[in-house]
Every structure is written in C-alpha cells, then in structure tokens.
C-alpha cells in the first residue's frame, strides 16, 4: 500500500469527512425489553424472549431511552420530530437475533443540528461548526467471538460463539453532514468533534461514553476531491475507530492512502475498512460496490413516537450548560492559564475538580490532588479517575486535617492509599495505619536531642548562621518518627533550642 506524505496530500487534495458515532445509553434496561444493560455477568444471562428474538416476542420502547435521545438532540441543537417511526433494517447477521435491526430510517427523532468545536492548531484555537444530519434511536447487536485460527480474528476462524447480552442495548446514532473545508486540520477536527461530543454526552449523563469499552464507537467516512469546488470523491468507511487518538490517526492515514491512489491514477473503492490500532493502518473489508439493500420499512410492532412540544421544552430545561461555555467560565473563575485548564480537561478531571471545590476544597488543592497523586494511581491501575474509590468529600476531610496539623502531605497520601484500598473511613485508616503527626513537643525535643547527639558538628554550623544545615536534623527526626512529624514544627523547636532565629 502506497502512502503520500500528509502535507503533500493536503496540498493536492481537499478532504471531506463524515463521522458516525454510536452511543450506548446508560439506561437501566434495554431498548425494547426489561433485561439489564450492565457490563459483565455470564454470557446469555441478560436475555429474554424479546432481545433473543424468540418467535412471538414483541418490543416495547423504553421511555428513558426516548427521553435521552431527545435531550441529546436538543444539546446538539437539533430539531425534534413531531412524529416519527421506527423502521426495520433488514440484513442477515448472526449477532442480530431477529435478522433485522430495529432502527430509524427516513424519520429520525432528531435532525438538522450542529456542534461548535474548538480545535487547537499551530495557528491558535479555531472554532469549527460541525453540522449534524441526524440523531436516531436503534438497538445494539450481540457479540461474536471467533474461535480457532488466529486468536479472536474473524478471518480464518473455524466457528463463532455468540453472546446476546449486548443485543438490544439502546444506541443513539449521531451522523454529521459532510464536514468541509478543514484542510490540514481534518484529523484534529475529527478528534476534537468526537471529544466534544463525548464531553457533551457525559454532561448530559446519558452514557458512560467509554470508548475503550465500546459504549462510544466511531466510524470515519472520508473522501478526497481535487479542490473545494469539485464534486465529492468516492469515500471509504472506516469502522470502529475507538479512541480519540485513533480517530486522528485514521483520518491522516486515509488521506495519505487515498491521495497516493488518486495520484497514481487509481480509483478509490467504496468499501468498509478496518482500523488496526497496532499498525495505525486501515485494511479493506467488504466492498460496497454492490450496494446493500436493507429493505427498510416502518416497524409494524411499534407505534409512532410523537413527542409533545411541552415535553420537548421540559427536556430542554434539563440540559446542562454547554461544556465549552462552562469550561471558559470555570477557567475565568479559577484564574488559571489555558495550559492548566487543558490539563484538567484532558485528565478527565473537570467534573471531579468542580465537585471537590463544591465540597469545600480550594481549586488549587483540588487540582493538585486530582491531577497529581490520583491521576498517577488511576494511570497505574488502568482505570478512569472517576472510578477511584475516593469522593470529593474525602478530599475535603483530608484537607481539613492537613490545615489542622493532624496530617502532612505524606500522611495524606498514605490515607488516600487506604481509601483506594477500601480500608474504611479516614479515621479508621488513620488509626489502623497509625498515621498521626507527632505534635507532642517533649517527644519531638527528645528526638531532636537524639539527632543532635549523633551530629555534633551541625549545632556549630547552625549557630554560625548556616541555617540550611538544620535540614539534616529535621530529616533525622522525620526518619525517627517514621514521617509522622510536622517538619515545620521540628525546625521551629530546633531553632528555639539553639537560640537562633530564621529571620
């Protein structure tokens, strides 16, 4: 496969993108039945006649899923249909128990919206308006695992095993209109759009939006044309690009690949392509030259949805502040730099910091904990920050103990470790781990005496005004008390004893 350098490709061609995002809603039950939607559990135990597609079973729409879909539509500045229907998308595939997907076709619930996206480029931050074609409701499929042949790969497998726990989980499919005039920013725009969409969905509290677990999945459609006035070229559809970084890379790759083909006088084939995270390449899947015929028709087992305008307005009132607007408001409130704000956002710590501040902690301390110690631990454990077993209120308690002199930074980290290991409440942990500062003057003076006795030269140095020599004594005291001394206090006592002053 030949590739053209990205910069050259952009000089010669104009990229046109279309992004399709599938979001799994975090409803308790499935789209059309009462089976649970949570992860885990034995295979094929979150299933019933409806989601297994047993003969005779019938779907009934989950009200919460419709509500979430409308809220998503409103947050994307969409119009909400006054009347729309579900439709059957007919094709055979073993992960789909009915051999049709209950989806929406020419009557989507939400349509004609947009999302403004800030893209940080070499030339500064630019805002792109991504136009939304539609957001519609549908159901997820089951999961096939391929056995034999290369592990987990469909190609060369001997047979497959099917688990339908995921079948019927509500999905919202969000489709953009063609994204034009992005030029060399195309990969960044794609990434920034999905990132902004993810923030928005998280703020709406409608989905877990975990790309790595597949609750947010992205298909990248891309084509090249000679210039911004030429008709669209033939597009490729790269399926399941499931991290923000991969989206950027996949767009770059497809631009380079298609540019090389066109440059060699070849035709781009309309086809599905598979993204390979490991190599950073896409490879050809099924050709779409013989267009699929899904034979859509209105779902006779479900009645139309006609959301009243009152309901829509009621839901509009539940929308959270737009994430971009909220970010700039918070940045101004905290008075921090763009760089510092970006660190908070990219660590996925924004809501956690906000909640911690709300619990009574200063924004500096809140940011320090979430971006420092806690980010490090989350990273080590391979979990999201929000999954750590620590609450904003815990951090408030810890900060209070530090201010009161009961804990120092080191002990606080020790307490946090205890919390994350589920060792109980903060006071339990302090007691069990024996984590209180030794603030008893006699005990500290005894330790100081001990340390001084071991280092008689230090006394002299200090008395000669070389105050930095005190560090060795403080260190020795800290060591003797296993870190449970307040360093400032030790210093103060030491100077008092030696009759020197820090000023």
């Amino acid at each position, binding site marked *: 496969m030949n590739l053209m350098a990205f910069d050259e490709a952009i000089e010669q061609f104009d990229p046109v993108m279309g992004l399709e995002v599938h979001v799994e809603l975090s409803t308790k039950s499935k789209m059309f039945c009462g089976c649970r939607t949570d992860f885990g559990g034995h295979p094929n135990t979150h299933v019933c006649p409806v989601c297994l597609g047993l003969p005779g079973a019938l779907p009934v729409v989950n*009200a*919460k899923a419709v509500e979430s879909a409308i809220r998503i539509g409103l947050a994307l500045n969409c119009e909400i249909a006054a009347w729309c229907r579900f439709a059957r998308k007919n094709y055979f595939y073993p992960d789909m128990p009915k051999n049709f997907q209950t989806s929406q076709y020419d009557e989507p619930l939400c349509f004609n919206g947009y999302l403004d996206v800030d893209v940080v480029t070499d030339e500064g931050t630019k805002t792109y308006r991504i136009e939304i074609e539609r957001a519609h409701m549908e159901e997820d499929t089951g999961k096939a695992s391929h056995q034999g042949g290369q592990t987990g790969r*469909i190609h060369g497998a001997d047979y*497959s095993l099917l688990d339908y726990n995921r079948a019927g989980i509500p999905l919202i499919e969000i489709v953009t209109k063609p994204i034009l005039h992005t030029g060399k920013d195309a990969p960044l725009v794609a990434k920034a759009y999905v990132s902004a969409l993810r923030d928005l969905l998280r703020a709406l509290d409608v989905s877990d939006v975990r790309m790595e677990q597949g609750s947010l999945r992205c298909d990248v459609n891309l084509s090249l044309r000679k210039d911004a006035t030429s008709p669209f070229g033939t597009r490729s559809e790269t399926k399941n690009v499931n991290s923000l970084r991969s989206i950027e890379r996949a767009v770059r790759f497809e631009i380079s690949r298609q540019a090389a083909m066109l440059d060699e006088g070849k035709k781009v084939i309309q086809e599905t392509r598979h993204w390979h995270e490991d190599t950073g390449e896409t490879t050809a899947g099924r050709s779409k030259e013989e267009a699929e015929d899904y034979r859509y028709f209105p779902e006779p087992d479900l009645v139309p949805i*006609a959301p009243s305008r009152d309901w829509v307005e009621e839901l509009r009132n539940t929308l959270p502040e737009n994430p971009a607007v909220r970010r700039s408001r918070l940045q101004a409130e905290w008075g921090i730099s763009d760089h510092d704000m970006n660190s908070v956002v990219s660590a996925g710590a924004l809501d956690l910091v906000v909640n911690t501040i709300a619990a009574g902690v200063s924004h500096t301390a809140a940011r320090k904990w979430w971006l420092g110690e806690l980010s490090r631990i989350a990273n080590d454990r391979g979990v999201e920050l929000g999954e750590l077993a620590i609450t904003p209120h815990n951090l408030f308690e810890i900060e209070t103990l530090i201010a009161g002199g009961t804990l120092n930074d080191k002990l606080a980290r020790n307490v946090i470790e205890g919390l994350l290991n589920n060792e109980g409440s903060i006071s339990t942990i302090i007691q069990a781990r024996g984590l209180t500062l030794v603030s008893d003057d006699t005990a500290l003076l005894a330790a100081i005496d001990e340390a001084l006795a071991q280092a008689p030269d230090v006394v002299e140095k200090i008395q000669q005004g070389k105050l930095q020599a005190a560090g060795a004594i403080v260190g020795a005291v800290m060591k003797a008390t296993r870190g449970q001394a307040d360093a400032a206090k030790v210093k103060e006592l030491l100077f008092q004893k030696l009759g020197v002053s820090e000023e």
Partner: protein
Amino acid sequence: MAELSREQVAHLAKLARLALSDEELEHYAQQLGVILDSVAKVTEVATADIKPTSHAIEMTNVFREDEIRPSFSSETTSRNAPEWEDERFRVPRILDEE
C-alpha cells in the same frame, strides 16, 4: 409491469437466504411474475395525495418505564440451541464482518 428474470429471483433468494435449485428459481420466476402482475393493480389507485397507512389503528407514544425485569438463566437460554458451547450459541464460521 413486472417480468422477473431468473437472475432477479436468484438475487432475491440470496437476500432472503434461501438456497434454491435452478429448477426452483425457474419455477418461482414464473409464479412470482404472475402474482406481481396481479398485485400491480394497487398502482392504479395509489395517487400521490393519499397518505400511506402502516398501522391500522392510530396510536402514538407507547412506552415502558426503564425498569429491569427478570432475564433467562443460561440454562433456559440454551434450551433450544442447535449448538451450545461455553455458555454461548455456537454458529458456523462467519466470512466477513457486517
């Protein structure tokens, strides 16, 4: 209006996942042609101004609350499976995705 070719019938059979013999294809091409000629009558009266009916009884907004209801046990799920392995339905190899 509708003459169905053998190729068209073969395409329909493929879409519908029906492995038909040449003889059957021939037979169905002829029969379906006759039926289609007869049902094409609907186009005589279906003018643009008429609203199509998908549901005979007009109803809207039939929803259920987002509540969890009991699901099948693995044993119940497996009961009619032609092949069952490792708590899952075993199916022949899948050629390509989607």
